[in-house]
């Protein structure tokens, strides 16, 4: 009996293995299964979530097995470097070049090392919060206080997406009150729970957070030690405007809009422009991957977006669908990198 069970399982497994092989789309230049490694080690985070959504949609479109593996950026780069056939792809976000700009260990210049693949989604949730009983009600008050000699401690995870908004705040203080920018101090913490904890402990005045992770905290009554308020969302107002109207949890999109860059909050980039930061997700390819495969994936993803279903899935999870072909993405992210490089360099002068 046991033997029979065993052999049926094997047969079933073998059948599973062979089934997709028979159904390969004829023009698919990638033979075999596809593995998508992501730059984050967490399966609870937005990178995994966005990658799962796009991988699922792509797998259906090109009729292949696609598996998302949360290996973290360093292992992901290694895996990607080994397989030029397109069987291993990577998904990451702006951290890829920000880590490099901030001089983090292990972050090489992605434009040199890899081919930038298509972008597909934006997470508009990155933001900054204060405790509900904070003396500062909005971003202006925080920047003015820093400009007038008050020390403001901002809890961030250094070296990337979490720091870029802090850099912008510092830059804003520098523009309005030259020489006072050092009153804004970074409190270097790690995960979201560490940042929240820093706020509860009174170690930080402002923390980096996100709509997804902190929305419920903003709805707590003011006398709760854990209660917080948003003061700024770094995404462009026009980006947030594209989000699901229901927003997140019980906070509607319109309520969130008041914290958006350029609408409720003004953080200047330089004399003319406002600073904004959209966290965008995109593919990274092995440099040796053939143009044929790049074109195939561009086309396949374009079709996925043309079908329109994946947009709904993204919106449901508070992502903003945002498709660019590989070439477009390459150009877009280079420009984005250059503009952030400027303010980071200004501060280090």
């Amino acid at each position, binding site marked *: 009996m046991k033997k029979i069970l065993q052999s049926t399982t094997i047969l079933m497994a073998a059948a599973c293995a062979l089934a997709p092989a028979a159904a390969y789309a004829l023009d698919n230049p990638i033979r075999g299964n596809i593995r998508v490694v992501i730059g984050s080690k967490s*399966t*609870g985070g937005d990178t*995994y*979530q966005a990658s799962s959504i796009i991988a699922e949609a792509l797998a259906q479109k090109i009729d292949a097995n696609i598996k998302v593996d949360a290996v973290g950026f360093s292992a992901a780069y290694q895996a990607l470097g080994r397989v030029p056939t397109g069987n291993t792809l990577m998904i990451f976000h702006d951290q890829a070049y920000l880590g490099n700009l901030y001089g983090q*260990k292990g972050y090489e210049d992605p434009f040199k090392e890899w081919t930038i693949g298509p972008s597909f989604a934006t997470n508009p949730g990155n933001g900054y919060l204060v405790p509900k009983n904070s003396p500062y009600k909005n971003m202006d008050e925080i920047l003015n206080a820093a400009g007038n000699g008050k020390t403001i401690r901002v809890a961030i995870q250094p070296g990337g997406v979490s720091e870029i908004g802090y850099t912008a705040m510092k830059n804003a203080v520098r523009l309005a009150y030259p020489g006072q920018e050092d009153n804004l101090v970074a409190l270097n913490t*790690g*995960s979201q729970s560490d940042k929240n904890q820093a706020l509860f402990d009174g170690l930080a005045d402002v923390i980096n957070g996100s709509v997804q992770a902190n929305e*419920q905290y903003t709805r*707590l009554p003011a006398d709760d030690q854990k209660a917080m308020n948003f003061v700024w969302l770094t995404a462009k107002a026009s980006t947030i405007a594209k989000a699901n109207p229901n927003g997140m*949890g019980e906070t509607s999109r319109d309520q969130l809009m008041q914290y958006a860059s350029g609408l409720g909050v003004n953080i200047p980039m330089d004399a003319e422009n406002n600073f904004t930061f959209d966290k965008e997700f995109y593919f990274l390819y092995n440099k040796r991957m053939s143009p044929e495969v790049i074109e195939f994936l561009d086309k396949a993803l374009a079709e996925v977006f043309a079908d329109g279903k994946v947009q709904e899935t993204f919106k449901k999870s508070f992502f903003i669908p945002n498709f660019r072909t590989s070439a477009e993405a390459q150009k877009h992210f280079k420009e984005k990198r250059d503009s952030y490089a400027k303010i980071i360099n200004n501060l280090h002068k």
Partner: protein
Amino acid sequence: MEFLELLSPSFFLLAAAGSIIGIIFGAIPGMTATMAVAVCLPLTYTLGLQEGLALLLGLYVGGISGGLVPAVLLNIPGTPSSITTTFDGYPMAQRGEAERALKTCIVASLFGGTFSAIVLFFFAPVLADFAIKFSYVEKFLMIFFAMSVIASLSKNILMGVFSGLLGVLLSLIGTYDVSNGGNGEYRLMAPFMEPYLAYGFSLLPVLIGLFGISTIIEEAEKGAREPSLENKVNLNKGKPFRFNIFKGQFSNLMRSSSIGTFIGMLPGIGGSAASILAYTQQKNFSKHPEKLGKGEPEGLVASESANNGLTGGALIPLLSLGIPGDSTTAVLIGAFTLQGLQVGPLFIGENIDTWFSMITALMFANIVMFIVMFYAIRHIAKVVLIPKFILYPIIVMMCAVGAYAINYGIMFDVWTLFLFGVAGWIFTKIGIEIAPLVIGFILGSSAEVYFVKSLESYGEYSILFTKSPIAMVLWGLIVLSIVVSVMIHRKSKQHANKEAK
């Protein structure tokens, strides 16, 4: 009650299936509860939230419990938190009491699991508010407290502490991780190691390397001979299991389950600390502490009720703060995000049906785990009868699968397995003690973060003592724990001397 409508037969079926699959994952050396939850996470897409959660919670409970099987039978912790189960479980199995040991573990697991589910149900929000009173300082002291077990666990205090510190040092190799609050700089390694060791050695490969692979190397050195007929482990020779084993163990059960639940509740302490701490405390409170580590059921009771106590505990910050309490719940949170559901301080109030169904799944999974394991264990225990020449290659193979899969496919983790297998084999020969080393390794990196961050944020050493009443209480416990373990060492030395005379 509306939630009752959500409880379809398939809900219970999935919780039971989860529990059973989890047990199998936990029972295979190298596969863990976290892995079981991770591999089934994508399934929750199609299953929907309630049923997806039933499956995952079943996997969680089953996986944590299944880890006791190889810990007892093979001296390999099936899941990192069952490391303390090996201390007494394996010696018992060697005496032919495998079934008795396993059943003791299973009953303790059921108690711990149920206890924590009840605590979760009644006290989650209150306890979460208490948990956020633990800042860097208090968390460091909790880690330090757990580390004090090294003093009582080692055969020779000097060598034991040395081994523990060595473990801590090994855990620091790599970057000072940015996602834990570090500065992302490398330390303790040569440039050629950078591509492999950016995140340092992973826990699971180190653990199964030190316990599993090194045992196989040792056996190979001895010729991998099958035991002769009269030395063969006889499953019927040892004492049978009776429930009266638990007589006088009630305080142990309560204490260990509470410790497990409490450690689970503190984000960033790590699940393995739970059973380690519970084991230390049992050793300190025990009437004959010198027997622990040589095959005493009370050690099993402490270890297993604590690591199942962890399950409910780790769900407390997840569901009432949105912050996972251990590595498995960190994966579990993915089930919520994939469904577009937020977990945070208002989760329970706004999703009361989901909340009730989760508790139901948790309780049910515990019961299934108990029934399945308690009655199947006679057969599982026969693993020890499989000849070595069949068993060992399979263990190596499964360890390789587990090591490769633990971080979703990293080859270096497999090499770590071999590296630490060889290291473990050499260590035992030169007097370095494995158990303290592993404990140092498990707790080392969190000890660093919380210690350095305490000093960095407050700028004075005295903060470690004066931060809060909680800190002072913890210091009291640490001192007590160390004093008691030194006394135990003295006592057992005198004992040994007396016997020698």
